[in-house]
């Protein structure tokens, strides 16, 4: 069968940019970032399994400034993907499709993810300072 030249979606250039598509793209981006984070998580367990020396090396990487920035980034990705994932599950169950509702839950998801990230790191750094 010869390939048929069909129109491709999404037509990014003809649609107005709005919160729904931005958050959809962000869901995918954070998902990919978290997949890379999964490698870091497994590396953490492997370092711990390998003994004190390798665990110290691993800790050194992630207590450096760059390491901490990565961890903060992954924390936001996690909370965003979690909150927006719950939004997706609600859609799967048939709730929240109204345009105004979807808009409001979208804003709520970004707000919640930002606040949770902030709270998590304030608590984490407060523990270190203890």
């Amino acid at each position, binding site marked *: 069968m010869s390939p048929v030249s069909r129109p491709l979606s999404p037509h990014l250039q003809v649609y107005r940019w709005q919160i729904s598509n931005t958050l959809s793209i962000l869901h*995918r981006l954070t*998902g*990919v970032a*978290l997949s890379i984070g999964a490698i870091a998580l497994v590396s953490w367990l492997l370092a711990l*399994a390998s003994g004190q020396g390798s*665990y110290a090396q691993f*800790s050194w990487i992630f207590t450096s400034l760059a390491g901490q920035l990565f961890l903060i980034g992954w924390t936001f990705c*996690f909370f965003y993907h979690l909150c927006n*994932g719950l939004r997706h599950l609600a859609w799967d169950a048939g709730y929240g499709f109204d345009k105004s509702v979807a808009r409001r839950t979208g804003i709520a998801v970004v707000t919640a993810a930002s606040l949770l990230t902030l709270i998590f790191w304030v608590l984490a750094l407060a523990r270190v300072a203890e």
Partner: protein
Amino acid sequence: MSLKSPLGRVLGLGSAGTGTEHWLGQRLSAVAMVPLTVWFALSLLGLPALDFYAVTAWVAAPLHAILLVLLVMALVYHSSLGTQVVVEDYIRSSGPRAVVLALLRLVHIALAVAGILAVFLIATRAPL
């Protein structure tokens, strides 16, 4: 002009006939990870320290080890399904796509094995 019947022209152009499993697996692993990841995040915050001994003792507790293995499994499965869709969406030519999909799957299998084995090794090493 094609001699194919109207029905013949459209048959085989529809859905792949599979996908429900993928869809369901993605959602089930997502639901499983809601409590698992929240537990993990809260546990990290609650640990007295993140040094070698404190974390080893925490991982080695049987309940924690079990939950960590479940987390690794759900996470890797969810990641495998999710990144698969991304590749399917953005890599159009079938050759490179098949290669990348195969590599992705292998990486995810390796991740799952490594994560589960690491938890097992930590849990069986303790008490130190």
